[in-house]
């Protein structure tokens, strides 16, 4: 996913002012994937959301000291989103790979059984014991079952995590924090 361009960056400006512009765009980018990514079928949106979380995390890890104290916490929260969605992404990569692998084993076995049957009028089920991958199907099916169930479980955790971040005002608090500068803290504390 190509990162959204950040307007108005000035190499001769201060680090804090430029970083603030970047964080605002990256934060908006991350939040823009919801509620679409809350649909378990929207695999691409979730993948893009992981990349957006990573970009927000990296800018905050580097520049949080430029801002109010919540920025550092928000960086950790972005990492939490990135890590969890990354685990889901791993399932989304492995499930089709394992399905393709299982299909390949089945096709090879079917072909071998057909050849073994020769001129027989029908296929003898006992031939299954001689299939080249006869002992391998169970493990591949077990892995596939595990991956699908794990994906569902992790996705539920992702929805709960995002809901929790929203309830705690993640977006509004980070937007506030990036407008603060460390020397201004006494001002924000009076608000």
């Amino acid at each position, binding site marked *: 996913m190509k*990162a959204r361009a950040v307007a108005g*960056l*000035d*190499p*001769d*400006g*201060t*680090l*804090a*002012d*430029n*970083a603030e512009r*970047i964080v605002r765009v990256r934060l908006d980018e991350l939040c823009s994937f919801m509620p679409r990514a809350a649909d378990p079928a929207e695999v691409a949106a979730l993948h893009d959301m992981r990349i957006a979380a*990573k*970009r927000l995390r*990296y*800018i905050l890890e*580097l*520049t949080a*000291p*430029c*801002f109010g104290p919540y920025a550092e916490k928000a960086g950790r929260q972005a990492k939490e989103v990135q890590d969890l969605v990354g685990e889901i992404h*791993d399932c989304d990569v*492995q499930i089709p790979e*394992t399905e393709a*692998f299982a299909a390949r084993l089945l096709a090879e076995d079917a072909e071998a059984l057909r050849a073994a049957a020769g001129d027989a009028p029908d296929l003898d089920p006992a031939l299954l014991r001689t299939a080249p*991958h006869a*002992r*391998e*199907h*169970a*493990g*591949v*099916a*077990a*892995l596939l079952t*595990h991956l699908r169930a794990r994906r569902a479980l992790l996705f539920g955790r992702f929805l709960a995590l995002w809901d929790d971040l929203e309830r705690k005002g993640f977006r509004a608090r980070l937007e506030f924090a990036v407008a603060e*500068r*460390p020397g201004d803290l006494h001002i924000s504390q009076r608000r």
Partner: protein
Amino acid sequence: MAKAAEIAIAPDEPYRAAAARIVRVRARELVEQAGGVLDVRDIERVHDMRVASRRLRAVLEIFAPCFPPQEFGGVLRDVKQLADALGERRDPDVHIDALTAFALEVPPAARPGVRRLVAEQRDRQAHGNEVLAAELERVEHRGLRERLLALADAADPPTAP
């Protein structure tokens, strides 16, 4: 896992000065992680270098406006390509680890199938190592480290001692 160096920053420092300083640190970290990265017996090395490449790519993107565009484009492409090659090796490393742990938990009848999957991943790992070896040679040949330092110097020339 090797932790990235903490880099002190000042909110009021010029964006371009921070760019130069941070790129120098992250470029050095990438180079430092290259030792033993092709050794498949220690998969943490390739992981550490991949993390270093991601951090470097992130800072290049964060500070992009501070660098001369033409040189920057080529360096960023090379860093991305190196990160992709590290991923080609790292992905099967992770799968082998996970499948090996999974095999210990499943009933004995399911283990031959899982072992077959591990064997497939070993083949991918060997291929990934070849891709990575070629990429490491390529970035060395293209002088990636020197070009990164030149980018940093262009953003904020070092002051004479």
